[in-house]
């Protein structure tokens, strides 16, 4: 990356060489240079800025994770894999990992399945098409912080909307925060609410690229609408489904703001950390208390590994199951 950037000294543009006597006008030389090298100049800002503020910090996390690094006390000592060893024995880390995976599964699977079904419904000729599409997309434009605040009240234990609804049909109220799994559900519900419509539109975009005569001939063969959905639509938008699965995995494992706001802005994630996610625990270790940068970095790096592993697993799982439907 750096070599391509280095090959184009930006100053060359400003000073066309004039010492050599020439038959052609200098602008011709500039023109040749312009055609050959200026493309690198145009893409360089992306690579430089992403390299410095995107890629470098992620990689540098590995380096920091090898140190006993505390900003407040000024400690910085090489520690090897000590941070990782401590981490493996840290019950709160495993608790956060458990919560993160649980919330991820609860929030991603229903989200993508419902999005697929919604997209299928939207993929018709209908009135008020734009209004309905806007209707399901609108949660996506609200801020995560606002969503967290709103849903914290909807899922409030004593007078919340959901418990009120449960009460009117004769159920006992649910402890939406004290119960670990209930809190996972509530947090996942927020994520689903915010992202289902967005994914549905991505699927819809892919569905509309499918040639319609495929469906016509399937219908002539007597395939039901449901069968057409599974044997034509789903296999043909498989690349898009895989894309959303990978992107959702990457995003879902980094979940931070929803559980934070759900817990009234506290990173501990409930009295017993019952809904503290890895991103919250990283924050707690790094930006509060002793500010243990090394420890937080080790955790970040493990989370990075988890994301890669789960993204690959999910990718393989979905590819396999969707392919199976085609046969």
């Amino acid at each position, binding site marked *: 990356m750096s070599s391509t950037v280095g090959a184009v000294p930006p100053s060359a543009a400003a000073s066309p060489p004039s010492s050599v006597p020439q038959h052609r006008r200098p602008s011709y030389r500039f023109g040749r240079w312009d055609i050959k090298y200026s493309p690198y100049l145009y893409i360089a800002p992306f690579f430089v800025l992403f390299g410095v503020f995107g890629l470098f910090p992620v990689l540098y996390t590995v380096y920091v994770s090898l140190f006993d690094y505390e900003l407040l006390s000024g400690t910085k000592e090489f520690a090897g894999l000590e941070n990782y060893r401590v981490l493996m024995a840290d019950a709160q880390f495993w608790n956060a990992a458990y919560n993160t995976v649980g919330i991820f599964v609860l929030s991603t699977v229903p989200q993508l399945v419902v999005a697929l079904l919604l997209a299928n419904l939207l993929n018709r000729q209908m009135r008020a098409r734009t209004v309905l599409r806007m209707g399901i997309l609108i949660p996506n434009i609200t801020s995560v912080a606002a969503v967290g605040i709103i849903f914290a009240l909807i899922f409030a234990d004593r007078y919340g909307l959901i418990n009120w609804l449960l009460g009117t049909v004769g159920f006992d109220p649910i402890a939406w925060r004290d119960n670990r799994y209930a809190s996972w559900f509530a947090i996942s519900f927020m994520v689903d609410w915010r992202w289902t419509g967005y994914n549905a539109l991505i699927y819809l975009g892919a569905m509309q690229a499918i040639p319609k005569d495929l469906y016509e001939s399937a219908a002539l063969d007597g395939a039901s609408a449901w069968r057409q959905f599974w044997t034509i639509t789903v296999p043909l938008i498989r690349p898009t489904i895989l894309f959303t699965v990978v992107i959702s995995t990457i995003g879902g494992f980094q979940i*931070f703001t929803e559980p934070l*706001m759900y817990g009234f802005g506290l990173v501990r994630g409930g009295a017993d950390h019952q809904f503290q996610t890895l991103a919250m625990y990283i924050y707690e270790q790094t930006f509060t208390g002793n500010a243990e940068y090394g420890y937080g970095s080790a955790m970040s790096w493990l989370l990075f590994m988890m994301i890669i592993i789960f993204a690959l697993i999910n990718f393989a799982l979905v590819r396999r199951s969707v392919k199976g439907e085609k046969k």
Partner: protein
Amino acid sequence: MTTAQTLPRSVAPPTPAPPRRRRGRVPGAQLWQASPLTYLALIMGSVLSVFPIIWSFIIASRDNSAVYEMPPVPGDQLFTNIDRMLANEDAAFVYGLVNSAVVSSVVTISVIFFSSLAGFAFAKLKFRGSNALLLVIILTMMVPTQLGVIPLYMMMVELEWTGTLQAVIVPFLVQGFGVFMMRQYAMSAISDELIEAARLDGCSTWRIYWNVVLPGLRPAAAVLGLLTFMQTWNEFLWPFIVLTPDTPTVQYSLKILSSGPYQTDYVALFAGTALATLPLLIVFIIFGRQIIGGIMEGAVKS
């Protein structure tokens, strides 16, 4: 705006099965007509989507004693609540709104500029390694950059940028998705002949970009701009880490309102969420069609 006419290839009606040729005989034809059940399901989905937002506006208009009252009907305290919320000096809500507007605008302009520039180069200019570099850009979309916040924060401390707006602007100036989106659009929207003609007229590559390509990319740039603006406006984690309560973005102000001593003043808090959401709601209502088109467009290409 003219964007509506030019962009929406995918927003155009989803070409239904031609009804003329074999009318009524094909069972598949009815698949493309929405049934009442379809409408019902979609309307329910929309209601479920819109309700929490409306409900939060309703609470913002009530008195604190009536927060939990059940049929959701609005109260008459909206402006009182807004006033009290704005008067809260710790949350500095107005300052947060202004900061968010500044940050989101700068980031949006920068992302449009750099994305269209690089997208143009990838779509229309020949240079060695362009395919490999494009692949790198696509891969950057997969990097969970949030996991680099600790070194990034250390960099900001080093630069003495903590608590300043450039700390939440500079790291977001470019976006892999934007480059890719602009490249895809430029491939189909800008003809090679146009660029050749401009070259023969003696235009430098920069002039071609500025005078020929950029105007042609306007529809896609508008969509990218809308998406980027909303995303930046809603950014939470990084501003929360690197900014301080006396220089908040609007999301940070909300966080202050929702915790600590103000936590119990629900109606003021909800007045805050309403005001923080309102600008985006307005943008969405005006440009919803383009935003939807942009999201669907991305799907076909990826």
